[in-house]
């Protein structure tokens, strides 16, 4: 089931949470809605669920417009951030609850509850109450409950934010596996770029209610559309340095560096820490003020004309605090952004 938004807008009393969003969530894929808190991603999810009514715009599930259809008629499964498991019901009762609403016979509902529990690998916990489960187990129950009624679309609101770091890794693989096995169109909201990158088939980056970029995870990382996307993806984050183009040469800190085929203007230069490569003949220059040894890599923190940058280099190379280094960028990988708007210059 393909899900499509057309010009979707949601205004609350004084803020526009979602601003004229049009996008397609491909059928049978896992799409991540990524953005910082307050960017409108959860609002978008709740609009999809029907818990909020849009101010303007349309929502389609396949060819059917569902904009005005109440949530219970949309055929969606929603996993809440805190799971919203009914605390007074056992795991089995929780999973069966939506089925009983559909007036399904008890035996059949029980059977499905068991299958779902098996899918998320909690079949031995059916008699427990939510309180007796760990966070990760509760998460699985919530997914099982959402899937039990065979929804057309599965929505997950910050599914991993309440789990500790170790469980998060494990659970996100689990979500990916369940999505693959069921083939259900899945949309999940997250503020964690790493989480989105690791499991999504497609990522939508939102900022201030507006979609910035819709792309494959790796594409977003390698080919960001603007400074915001570039900054938001990647850890450690991208380095940004002020620069100027003079006569088709990029001038950084009053030094001519790289040739670029663009008109004269002030720009922002972005490059990823892992692309920094120390090279005595390199075009760029920086001063090291701190060196961090992190396992097999060395992280150097430098300044270029008072702007802080980070580079990740091979730990074989010996560097010291106070050194002036020259460096190059691997595969000439760097990005130029318009100075004021942050739009990518190509």
């Amino acid at each position: 089931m393909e899900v499509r938004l057309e010009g979707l807008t949601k205004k609350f009393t004084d803020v526009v949470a979602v601003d004229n969003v049009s996008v397609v969530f491909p059928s049978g894929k896992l799409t991540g809605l990524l953005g910082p808190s307050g960017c409108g991603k959860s609002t978008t999810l709740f609009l999809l669920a029907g818990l909020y009514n849009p101010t303007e715009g349309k929502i389609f599930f396949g060819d059917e417009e569902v904009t005005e259809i109440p949530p219970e008629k949309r055929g969606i499964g929603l996993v809440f951030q805190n799971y919203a498991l009914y605390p007074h019901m056992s795991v089995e009762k929780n999973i069966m609850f939506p089925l009983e609403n559909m007036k399904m016979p008890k035996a059949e509902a029980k059977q499905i509850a068991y299958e779902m529990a098996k899918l998320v690998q909690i079949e031995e916990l059916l008699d427990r109450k939510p309180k007796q489960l760990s966070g990760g187990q509760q998460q699985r129950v919530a997914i099982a409950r959402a899937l039990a009624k065979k929804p057309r679309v599965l929505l997950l609101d910050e599914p991993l934010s309440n789990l500790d770091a170790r469980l998060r890794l494990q659970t996100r693989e689990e979500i990916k596996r369940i999505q693959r096995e069921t083939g259900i169109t899945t949309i999940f909201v997250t503020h964690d770029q790493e989480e989105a990158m690791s499991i999504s088939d497609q990522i939508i980056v939102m900022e201030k209610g507006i979609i910035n970029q819709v792309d494959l995870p790796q594409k977003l990382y390698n080919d960001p559309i603007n400074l915001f996307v570039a900054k938001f993806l990647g850890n450690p984050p991208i380095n940004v340095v002020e620069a100027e183009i003079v006569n088709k040469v990029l001038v950084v800190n009053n030094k001519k560096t790289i040739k670029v085929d663009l008109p004269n203007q002030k720009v922002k230069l972005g490059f990823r820490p892992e692309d920094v490569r120390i090279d005595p003949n390199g075009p760029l220059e920086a001063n090291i003020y701190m060196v961090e040894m992190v396992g097999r890599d060395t992280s150097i923190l430098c300044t270029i004309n008072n702007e802080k940058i980070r580079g990740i280099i091979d730990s074989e190379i010996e560097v010291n605090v106070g050194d002036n280094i020259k460096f190059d960028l691997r595969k000439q990988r760097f990005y130029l952004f318009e100075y004021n708007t942050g739009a990518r210059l190509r």
Partner: protein
Amino acid sequence: MRENYKLWYYLRKSLVYFLLIFAAVLVFIPFYWMILTALKSDYAVELVPPEMFTWDLHFKNFIDAYKSTRFDLYFRNTLFVAFCSTTGTVITTVLASFAFARLEFKGRDTIFMLLLATMMIPGEMLIITNFVTIKNWQLDDTFAALILPFMTSVFYIFFLRQTFKQIPNELYLAAKVDGTSDFKYLLKIMVPIAKPTILTIIILSAIGSWNAYVWPNLVTSLSNESVKLISNGLRSSAFVDDLGRVKYNWQMAGSTIVTIPILIVFLTLKKYIIRGVSRSGIKG
């Protein structure tokens, strides 16, 4: 199709509103009937069937009803009793709650548990002996009889202790380091922080005095006007005309006079009262 969903939604909402407003009207009827009757003329009040509304409002009924009784005296008595028992309650509960919340002494938790257990006991069990005590101390027909038993409350101690316990212990330790005495700490730090809870206690205790009827009725004699409280005064007031027939408009005016002050207190300080009530349970 989609219009249907909206229609159902609005129908259901309307039904909820209709039922709630209907229930609210039912709840409000006694107040309406009380005030309406209090304002009716002597003639209108005896109409059959009675008028459900009238523009012929006789505000003078309030003055007449007030003058036909010793309401001025009852008000003064009630305010005095309310003031004394509330002040006493605040002092005793603040001190005791502080002891339970912050001080360490032998038997503290045992005593606290015992006190909590007494909240289960119906007041009627206690009233009999208290009645005997007051008689034996020859305090019947005195203000002391009306005030003394209400100068403390296990529930308020429990309630205030909860609030005190929420104040971080570091504040206490910091004060200790600065050489602040316990009493000064209680007065300068704990009491100001717990002000909302103390205000709740003051209001509920004062309302309790205002509505007290059974105990005053027991320990004061009907003929003794000098210590009579407002509820008892209202009940013993006749509101009759020269022929001895009940003047319902006066009677309702009397009820209104007793009810209105407390309603005003309630409406202005609603949030404190609701806070106290829904936190735990005391029935006024």
